[in-house]
């Protein structure tokens, strides 16, 4: 318990964590502002909250911010200390390596969860005030779940790579690569694979099939599959008459996106990377 209290205090004293939390909260405030249809004077009775649109806006922003926070939190709280030898000054105390790993991981997750909770509370409070309607509980739960999975996955990946790589420089390099490949460039990679490898350009349903399968192998893609499940809409690339994108209504279950598959893969993303790091900490060091 000693280590978790200290690690929590240490996490919330980190300038980087505080800045990231503030950015996430500020972006929630901006999303909230956009929700109020600025510049339009819509009578209260005609205001309709479009949850699908809200999810797409939140997704566009949080799918970048949460991974950044998780990756650098993982680097600062664990990876850098492990590579520099600072962690050894703790491990030599009456504590196990895995105890330190879990304590720091939990402290990092708590920071992410607090940032998310405040951000979602701001959005919900705005919805309540402007639309006189709170967000449905299942949508709030879904938003939480998506970004907790994403945060835990990227944080866990950083812990895992911290046990594979030996230097701070290589760890920073991998952190950037993980962020680019699994987050920023993920949609592009999926599209290129669908077109280049599977020739799915002329068939939206083939494209969606490939997209949903590939999206399960990236935390950011997982978020896309969650949105597909929630909104039952996706954007498929087609080139029937030139390259273009179309928003299509689909049945997620026909592409394997069900509550069970999402729950299982979400749990796997939260648990597997940090579990592998845990195993390496036990066996390899």
């Amino acid at each position: 318990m000693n280590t978790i209290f200290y690690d929590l205090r240490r996490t919330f004293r980190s300038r980087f964590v505080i800045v990231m939390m503030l950015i996430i909260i500020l972006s929630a405030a901006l999303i909230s502002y956009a929700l109020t249809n600025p510049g339009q004077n819509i009578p209260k009775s005609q205001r309709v909250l479009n949850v699908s649109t809200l999810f797409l806006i939140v997704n566009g922003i949080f799918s970048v911010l949460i991974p950044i926070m998780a990756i650098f939190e993982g680097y600062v709280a664990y990876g850098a200390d492990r590579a520099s030898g600072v962690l050894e000054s703790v491990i030599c105390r009456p504590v196990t390596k895995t105890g330190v790993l879990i304590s720091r991981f939990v402290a990092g997750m708590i920071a992410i969860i607090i940032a998310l909770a405040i951000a979602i509370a701001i959005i919900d409070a705005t919805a309540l005030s402007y639309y006189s309607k709170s967000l449905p509980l299942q949508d709030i739960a879904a938003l939480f779940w998506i970004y907790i999975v994403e945060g835990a996955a990227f944080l866990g990946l950083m812990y895992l790579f911290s046990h594979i790589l030996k230097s701070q420089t290589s760890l920073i390099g991998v952190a950037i690569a993980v962020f680019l490949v699994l987050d920023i460039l993920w949609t592009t990679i999926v599209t290129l694979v669908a077109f280049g490898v599977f020739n799915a350009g002329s068939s939206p349903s083939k494209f969606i099939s490939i997209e949903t399968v590939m999206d399960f192998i990236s935390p950011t893609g997982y978020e896309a599959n969650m949105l597909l499940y929630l909104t039952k809409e996706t954007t498929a690339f087609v080139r029937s008459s030139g390259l273009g994108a179309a928003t299509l209504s689909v049945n997620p279950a026909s592409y394997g996106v069900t509550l069970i598959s999402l729950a299982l893969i979400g749990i796997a993303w939260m648990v597997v990377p940090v579990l592998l790091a845990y195993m390496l900490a036990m066996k390899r060091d």
Partner: protein
Amino acid sequence: MNVNDGEVLGFAGLNGAGKTTTIRMAAGIIYPTSGTVLVDGKDIVKEKVQASMNIGWVPEFPNFEPNAKPLTLLKYYAGFYGIRADDAVRRGKELLDMFDLGDEVNKKLKNYSQGMKKRFSLVAALLPDPKNLLLDETLNGLDPEGIRFMRKFLADLRSKGKAILLSSHILTELENTADRVAVIHKGKLLEIIEREKLTSITSDGGKLEDYFFKLIGG
């Protein structure tokens, strides 16, 4: 290889012989590929928490949380041993004064020099008053005053019944400080030179260094 209570076991070897690796294994930092390390009967791998209760480790190049201040970090370390925060601060201040760091308590550890970090490492190791100390090249880089202080300090710890493993490649220092000297070469323990033998080696103007090189075939 045993380190008995109330003795300083010198640990000699060339660079890369395995001194630091052995000490890191004994401190529970790395796992042994074979064999076991027992600290007062507790296995450092299987009973890490209990075994570490009685170990103080001073690495050759200590690294600490760069943004922490010494007393904050000592309070954190103390928590692992069940030492109350106010007791940790009191003992921490005593030890910091003893190692001439009393005036540096408001500095962050990233602003400490390597020598100061080494002294702080001794403070951190001694905080829980462990029965066993692992000192890795602690005499290295000390000025004559520092070496004299350390000799006296080690003698004091020995008289209190502490078991001390002191690695060094400064053989003359081990001659003066250690009760016995274990010689390691290429990962193998070649001999533990007992006090009587150590005395006889050095009594007729001989040197531990000559015996050491004969032992490793150098």
